[in-house]
C-alpha cells in the first residue's frame, strides 16, 4: 500500500479516537482509547521515518511507544486505582451537545486551516488540520469536563496533537530538542497525576468545579 495513503488513513483514525477519549465516561476505558491513539501516533512517526529517511524518527517512535503507549496509560490507571474514581463525574454538557460541538470543531478546523496556516509546502499537509483538531478537542474537553483525571487525559491528548504537528513539520529538528520536549510533557503529566491523588486525599474530591476555596 502507498505509504502516504496509510499515513493519511492512520491520522484520520486519530480523530475518531480523540472523540472516544473525550466521550467515554469510564476513566479506565478512556485511558485505553488514549493508548490506541498513542499507538497510532507512534505508527505515524515510523511512517514519517520511512518516507523521509530521517533515522532519528525511529528513535522518536521508540520513545513514544515507551512513554505514551506504556507509561502514561499505566500511570493513569495507577491514579484511577489510587483515587478509587472509576467513572467520570457528570460533565457540564449533555452528550448530544458535546458531540455537536466536537463535530463543529472538526469541520471548521478542516475548512479554515489551509488559509490560516501558510505552510502548504509541508510534505505532510494532511497532518496539520488533524493535529489542530486533536489540540482543540483537548482544550474543549478540558473546559467542559469536571473530573481532574479526565482533564489530565485531555492534556495528554492535546500533547499528542502538538507532537504530531512537531513530527510532521519539524522532523529535521535535532534529537536533543525532541528528547527535551517529550521529557517535559511526561514529567508534567506525572506531576499532575500525583497532585490529583493528593487532591483526592486532602480535599476529598476530584471535581475541579468544587475547587473554589480560592476566589478573588
Amino acid at each position, binding site marked *: 500500500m502507498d505509504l502516504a495513503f496509510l499515513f493519511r488513513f492512520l491520522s484520520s483514525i486519530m480523530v475518531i479516537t480523540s472523540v472516544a477519549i473525550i466521550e467515554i465516561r469510564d476513566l479506565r476505558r478512556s485511558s485505553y482509547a488514549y493508548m490506541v491513539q498513542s499507538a497510532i501516533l507512534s505508527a505515524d512517526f515510523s511512517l514519517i521515518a520511512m518516507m523521509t529517511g530521517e533515522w532519528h524518527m525511529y528513535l522518536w517512535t521508540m520513545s513514544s511507544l515507551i512513554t505514551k503507549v506504556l507509561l502514561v496509560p499505566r500511570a493513569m490507571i495507577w491514579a484511577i486505582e489510587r483515587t478509587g474514581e472509576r467513572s467520570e463525574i457528570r460533565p457540564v454538557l449533555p452528550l448530544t451537545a458535546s458531540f455537536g460541538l466536537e463535530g463543529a470543531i472538526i469541520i471548521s478546523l478542516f475548512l479554515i486551516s489551509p488559509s490560516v*496556516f501558510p505552510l502548504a509546502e509541508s510534505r505532510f499537509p494532511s497532518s496539520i488540520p488533524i493535529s489542530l483538531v486533536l489540540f482543540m478537542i483537548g482544550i474543549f474537553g478540558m473546559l467542559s469536563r469536571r473530573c481532574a483525571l479526565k*482533564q489530565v487525559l485531555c492534556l495528554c491528548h492535546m500533547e499528542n496533537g502538538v507532537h504530531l504537528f512537531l513530527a510532521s513539520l519539524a522532523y529535521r529538528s535535532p534529537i536533543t530538542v525532541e528528547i527535551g520536549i517529550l521529557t517535559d510533557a511526561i514529567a508534567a503529566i506525572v506531576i499532575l497525576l500525583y497532585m490529583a491523588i493528593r487532591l483526592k486525599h486532602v480535599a476529598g474530591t476530584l471535581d475541579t468545579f468544587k475547587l473554589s476555596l480560592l476566589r478573588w
Partner: protein
Amino acid sequence: MIPVLMSLSPLVGSLLSLFLGRRQREICCILSSLISLILATTAFISVKAEPELFLSGEIILDGLGALTAFLISLIVLLASVYSPRYMNLEEGKHRTYYFLLQLFNFTMLSVCISNNIFLIWVFVEATTLSSVFLVTIRGDPTSLEAGWKYVLLCTVGLSIALFGTVMLYVEALERVGESGILWTELIKNKNILNVKAMETAVIFIIAGYGVKAGLFPFHWWLPDTYSEAPTPVSSVLSGVLINCSFLAIARFYLLSPSGVASSLLLLLGIISALFGSIAMIGQANMKRLLAYSSVENMGIACIGLGAGGVGIMFSIFHVFNHGLLKSAAFLSWGGVEKSNKAEVPPSVAFSLILSFILLGGCPPSGIFLSELGVLTSVVRNVLLAVAYLISVFTSFSVLSYNAMERGLGRPAGGNSSPIWIVPLISSAMSIAIGLYPSPLLRVIEEFLGGAS
C-alpha cells in the same frame, strides 16, 4: 563560558544539598546562588553590543539575557537568605524546598542563556515543573488547589507556545536552513522570512508565553499561586519567573515587531493593566493584591513592547524594576506576617511602606522612570494614554493606601526578626537605578540596536 557556569552552579548546589544536613543545606543554597550572582554580574559587566555565542551557538550572552540573569540570581539569593528565618520546615520538606529552589534557579537562568528556540520552550516548561512543589510545600487543600491550577494552565499555555515555535521553525527551515533553530540566526535573517507566517507564529507564541507571564484572560493562576506559596517563593515567582516568560515574548516579538502581533500586545497589555489595577481595589489579602499588581505591571510592559520605538526599551527596563520591587514588597510583607498580629515593629513598617510606595511608582524608584517612558510611547493615542494613566494611578493609590494602613494602622512594638533588612537591599537598588538609570538603559539600547 561564564553563562554556562552561572546556570550550572545552582544545579550543582541543588544536587549537593540532597546529601547535606539541615544547616549546611541552607548555607549551600546561599553559596550556590551567591556564586551564580557573582558570575551573572561578571557576565553583565562584560556584555557587548554583539551577542556572544558558546557551544556551537546554543548558548547566548546578550544584554537582555544578562540583565534578566542578574535579576534572577539576585532575587533567588535574597530568597535563600530569607527562607531559613521565615519558616521552619520539617526535615523532609526542608530537603525538598532547598533542592527545588536551586533547581528552579537553574531552569530560570537557563531560559536567559538559551539561543535555541526549542530549548527556550523546554526550560520555560521546566520552570513550571520545578516550582510547583515549592507552591504546594505546605500540603493543605488550598495550596494543592493553587498548584493544580498553576501546572494545568501553564502547561496548556505552553503547548500553544510550542505550536508557534514549530511554525516558526518550519518557516526558518525553508528560508534560513538548519541553523534557523537559533534565535540569533532568525533575528539576522528576519527580513527574508515570510511576514504572514511569522506573524501567525508570533501570535501563538505571545498567547502561549502570555499565560505564563500572567496576561489578562489567563491570569487566574497568578493570585492563587502567589497567595498560597510561602512568601520567599512568591517573591521569586512574582519577581523573576514572569520575567523569564517576558524575555521569551520579547525575543520572539522582536522577530516581527509590527502588524497584528503589536496590536495584540497593545490590546492584551491595556486590558491586563486596567483589569489588574481595578482588581487590586478592595483586595484584603496582601499577597493577592500584589499578584494583581503583577498582572497590571506585565500589562504595562506589553503596552511598551507593542507601542514600539522607545517603548520597547522602557518595557524591558520596566520589567527589571518591577522584578526588584515586587520581590521587595513580598519579602517586606513576609516581615509583617512574622510579627505579632496586634503590633508592627517600626523597622518592618518602614520596609513595607518603602517597598510598596516605590512599587506604586513614587519618583525616586526606577518604576517611575519606566512608566514615564512607556507613557511617552503611547501618548499619541489619547484613548490608550488615558486608560494607561488610570491604571497607573489606581495602582499607586491602592498600594500606598494599603501600605499606610498595614504599616501605620497598628500600634508600634513587638520584636522584629532581622529579615526586614533583606527587602531594603532591593528597594535601595531600585532607588539607585532610578537616580542613575543610564548604565542599564545603555545595555538595553545596545541590545535592541543589535536586534533591529
